[in-house]
């Protein structure tokens, strides 16, 4: 019953959220989950105390080919924005 999927987790600036969701729509990705977070990376500390320094974590469960397409679609953002994309294996149970 469990199906092998990929979990793509996108850590990025909060202002990027609508642009990332627009990519989901373009690629036909329906399901995703967003949560607010803060952090530090090569773009410095993002303390989350106002919108311009907030991060979001966006999680998407999808199959391998879709995760490849998603990753490709996100690459242009990497140049100008704080962004980290990681992928791992999950079983989706329902």
């Amino acid at each position: 019953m469990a199906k092998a999927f990929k979990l793509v987790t996108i850590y990025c600036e909060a202002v990027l959220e609508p642009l990332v969701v627009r990519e989901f729509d373009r690629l036909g990705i329906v399901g995703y989950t967003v949560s607010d977070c803060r952090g530090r990376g090569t773009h410095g500390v993002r303390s989350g105390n106002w919108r311009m320094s907030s991060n979001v974590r966006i999680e998407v469960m999808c199959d391998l080919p879709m995760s490849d397409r998603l990753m490709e679609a996100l690459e242009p953002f990497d140049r100008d924005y704080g962004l980290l994309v990681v992928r791992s294996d999950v079983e989706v149970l329902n």
Partner: protein
Amino acid sequence: MVFDPIVLFFLLGLLAGLSKSDLKIPAAIYEALSIYLLLAIGLKGGVELSKYPLGELVTSSAIVLAAGMLIPIIGYPVLRFLGKLSHYDAASIAAHYGSVSVVTYSVAVATLIERDWAHDGYMVVYLALLEMPALILGVVLARLGDARDGQASAGLAALRSIHWGRLAHEVFFGKSILLLIGGLIIGFIAGEKGYEPIAPVFKEAFKGLLALFLLEMGLVAASRIAAFRSYGAFLVGFAIVMPLVSASIGILTARYLEFSQGNATLLATLYASASYIAAPAAMRIAVPQANPALSIGASLGVTFPFNLFVGIPIYMWMARTFIPG
């Protein structure tokens, strides 16, 4: 004292931030306070507007707007050629300084009230008007810069490449314009009588909540100052001199429009102030190549406190000196 004691809350926040205190104002409270300030200012302006002939504001608005656009137009080449910044950064910073700061305006109003200087609530109409055009101008400057750098074949093509629809949406339905204009209209419809029952929240609590917002601004500014230090003296100088230039344009415009000394101070403050709510978000999306640390560092880390502690008193002095009483 030369400034209103309310600005001490900003210093307290700054101190807390710089000393790495565990004081943190939750992001939800920051959001709520900024929504409150925008609505409250809009409402008050709308109520006052309902007592004045709207027609008279039309001509003066056009002039205030046109004069205000000089600020990014002056700022851009200075940043680009004197400061040797990339044309993205120059355009983004110019846009921040062409736009306005709601909190700086509010502190100026509070100071005028404390000193018993007459001024008009409808000045908030200019606040609403000035917030956005400079942002559009900033995007245009960035794209024309692209064109000149050979990344597009011509200026016209560069302009065509702007997502005008998305930009217009950002401009008119961005929360700051929506709340300001929405507040203006509700205040206008409600009038003095409809305003009265909500005045305990939107009028009497205003200055106290502004104090809390300034505390938070101090915390945010502290984190910006650190990030900003590495960008050298030019930008610090710009962040201090540009407001003085802008304020002078404001005083001249006010004199031409025969404003009172109080209104002239407010117009000078609007011109001199730099945005940190609408501009950073809009520029981050529309000109992503610009480094936000530069623009926010300059506007929030230098110009905002400069205006609070030094600028507003200077603009009052300018108004007293150059505007007939």
